[in-house]
């Protein structure tokens, strides 16, 4: 069942334009605030009407501007989990969950309650339960109606970190069992990578790149996407030499690199990048044989992060040129500190050419 979207919508300063085919699995709409991802979700749900285009799910036409067709929200059979729990405050948890379902759903109810770990809350009122519990109730409420597609708008943003992790797992369990396509909106990269089968990166109303999560992460299509997926080291250069079966030599503004061969004309300007975690630290006594794009660098700063250290390295006269991530034990064992010199290697296969 494919959801085919091709819509245009003008909302104040935002010009949204999206052309996507969404299949089974969980698709993430990733982007900064205001990029239009929630608007796109609302267009799919029917809560907003596009200016032009069509939205077709399988054989059902939800919206078609040519034929002036707009199926109202309540006929689309989509499940929607909002950013804030949005439970009906005057109904019990049980009544909330069964709100949109028929009478037969009572059996389904108990199964969902245990799957989402919210048994024994049936008779409570929404004010009496926690945020994490409320979001799970909202999820149950949406799923019990057996929707064609599940839409989630930053469902975990109102939860604290610890609860967030747990509810994410709950969501994955539930999606696995119900096997309905889902679209999740988030601005959190980690969340996108953890949950998404496919990711659509959005910015300022446009879809910058759409593909498998791994693809987006390692092979961002352009600079904006690269920055968004955390590829911090982005450099400009010019192709000096391109030799088939051997490689491409790039004369970078900061340093030269050699990358695996790809068809390109010598003299072309390119942009390339490498993820901070792919910058290889060369141990002086052991890694002297590594020859790929080795650079002597000076450590400018070491920033402590959750479980790693982020090292800012300098090659040129700029403040810093390369970001490298290293596990704590490496930095501590080696006694690395700002001011030290060391050698790193930019592995050819980790270098990625970004079209600009």
């Amino acid at each position, binding site marked *: 069942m494919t959801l085919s979207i091709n819509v245009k919508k003008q909302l104040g300063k935002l010009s949204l334009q999206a052309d996507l085919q969404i299949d089974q699995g969980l698709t993430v709409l990733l982007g900064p605030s205001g990029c239009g991802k929630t608007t796109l979700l609302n267009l799919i749900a029917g809560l907003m009407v596009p200016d032009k285009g069509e939205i077709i799910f399988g054989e059902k036409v939800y919206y078609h501007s040519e034929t002036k067709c707009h199926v109202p929200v309540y006929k689309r059979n989509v499940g929607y989990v*909002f950013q804030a729990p949005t439970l009906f405050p005057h109904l019990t948890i049980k009544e909330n969950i069964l709100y949109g379902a028929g009478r037969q759903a009572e059996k389904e109810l108990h199964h969902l309650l245990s799957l989402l770990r919210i048994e024994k809350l049936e008779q409570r009122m929404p004010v009496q339960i926690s945020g994490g519990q409320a979001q799970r109730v909202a999820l149950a409420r949406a799923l019990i109606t057996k929707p064609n597609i599940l839409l989630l708008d930053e469902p975990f943003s109102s939860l604290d970190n610890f609860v967030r992790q747990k509810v994410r797992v709950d969501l994955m369990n539930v999606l696995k069992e119900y096997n309905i396509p889902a679209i999740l909106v988030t601005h959190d990269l980690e969340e996108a990578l953890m949950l998404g089968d496919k990711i659509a990166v959005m910015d300022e109303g446009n879809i910058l790149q759409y593909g498998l999560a791994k693809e987006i992460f390692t092979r961002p299509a352009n600079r904006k996407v690269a920055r968004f997926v955390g590829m911090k080291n982005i450099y400009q250069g010019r192709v000096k030499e391109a030799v088939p079966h051997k490689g491409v030599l790039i004369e970078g503004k900061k340093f030269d690199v050699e990358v695996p061969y790809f068809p390109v004309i010598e003299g072309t300007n390119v942009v390339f990048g490498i993820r901070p975690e792919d910058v290889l630290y060369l141990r002086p006594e052991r890694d002297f044989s590594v020859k790929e794009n080795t650079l002597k660098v000076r450590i400018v700063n070491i920033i402590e992060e959750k479980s790693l250290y982020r090292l800012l390295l300098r090659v040129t006269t700029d403040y810093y040129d390369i970001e490298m991530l290293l596990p704590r034990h490496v930095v501590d064992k080696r006694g690395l500190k700002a001011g030290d010199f060391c050698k790193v290697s930019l592995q050819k296969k980790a270098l990625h050419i970004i079209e600009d």
Partner: protein
Amino acid sequence: MLAGEINVKNVWWVLSAVLLPLFIIIPIISIFLNLEIGTVISKINQPIVYEALRVSFSTSLISILLVVILGTPLAYVLASKDFKGKRLLDSLVDLPMVMPPAVAGVALLMAFGRRGLIGQSFGLNVSFTFAAVVLAQIFVAAPFFVRAAKSSFQAVPKELKSASLTLGVTPWRTFWRVTLPLSAPGLMGGLVMSWARALGEFGATIMFAGNFRGVTQTLPLAIYTAMESDFQAAMVISALMVIISLAVLILVRHLTNQ
């Protein structure tokens, strides 16, 4: 209140805080001080009293019913939709609240009387009838209800309605299952205030409906009439109305504090 900001022992503060409440309570108590149980019982059986009770209650019940039936959809539209001329409509609905009641009476006469705008077109003459009382009450009381209903509807979060729609419930059923239950306290408060206003209406009623006992003589009109002929009866009706007002106040506070 910060220490030193207001010294409650300071006589000026006490005076200003107490003068207005005193001014309100003294006249009210005075009504009751002039009554005896015997008087009350005998007066209630006088036609001037029980006829007025009958007219007031029957007209106000009908008025309120009509106000709710006509006012609720209006309030809902004002609360949820944005359209050209909305502000104008909003102000229009509020207008009777700022108009002098006597003027309202004259206006109604000019519209629905024998030679009025509507009166002439439809061959009606509603003035000085039971229906006129109802119309006058609706005119002055409707804004109270519509205003309260509008803000009650507005207080229901939009996301709840959206959630209901995504769960497959039509907008009509969403109103009954979500919007109405959540705005009920506010609606009830508005209804009660509106009813109190309708009961107390004098100026428009006497101008448009006249003062015919048993037909258009409401409780306030009866007080006015009784003041000349049967002073004690006026006292009794007044006392009754004070009790009703107190009941209204308590009821509204109870309902809207939920």
